[in-house]
């Protein structure tokens, strides 16, 4: 069963604004990854954050991880129309020793209004 939950399920903002998406999970993890998917195509890997890390940056993306609350957030700053996509978090369970597949959240559909 899906262990990750994202909120909000859908988010619509104006171009230039910041977008924040949240993810919660249920079991101990090795790492958490964020992906982007445009219109039902393949997934693009955005950021991997390990369980011993609290924050990570990549360009306009900032990811935080709070293992005590079993939650993560993805912040996209200065949003652009091209950021319109679905965003998923996915966890790699600690019990798998790093050799398991990922458990995905339900995703947030982000729409950037020009």
């Amino acid at each position, binding site marked *: 069963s*899906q262990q990750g939950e994202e909120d909000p399920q859908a988010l619509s903002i104006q171009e230039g604004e910041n977008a924040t998406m949240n993810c919660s999970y249920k079991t101990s993890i*090795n*790492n958490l*990854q964020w*992906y982007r998917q445009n219109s*039902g*195509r*393949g*997934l*693009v*890997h955005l950021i*991997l954050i*390990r369980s011993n890390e609290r924050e990570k940056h990549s360009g306009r993306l900032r990811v935080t991880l709070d293992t005590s609350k079993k939650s993560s957030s993805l912040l996209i700053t200065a949003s652009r129309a091209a950021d319109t996509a679905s965003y*998923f978090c*996915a966890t*790699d369970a600690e019990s798998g*020793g*790093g*050799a*398991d*597949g*990922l*458990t*995905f*959240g*339900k*995703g947030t559909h982000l729409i950037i209004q020009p």
Partner: protein
Amino acid sequence: SAVISQKPSRDICQRGTSLTIQCQVDSQVTMMFWYRQQPGQSLTLIATANQGSEATYESGFVIDKFPISRPNLTFSTLTVSNMSPEDSSIYLCSVVIGLGQPQHFGDGTRLSIL
């Protein structure tokens, strides 16, 4: 990251037939996985493709319905057998180059069953 080629990119099939999806990577990888994404849903792990041995299936997925092969460290196939309209989904392969590394996805195969 590895370049992942998935074929076919899409297909429309008749009920009761089978389709084999191929996943080719341009370098040797440690892990390969297969996922299903039903319309409007998130991704669900089908199985881990094990090199030279039987795949490891997740709950709800069985070998008779989704036989998987992985003859070497760069190639895997997923067959969707005896298809019904409920099998209409996007099927995606993913790879991990090394333990603890990000999981990267192919562009997926969009499958429609009539």
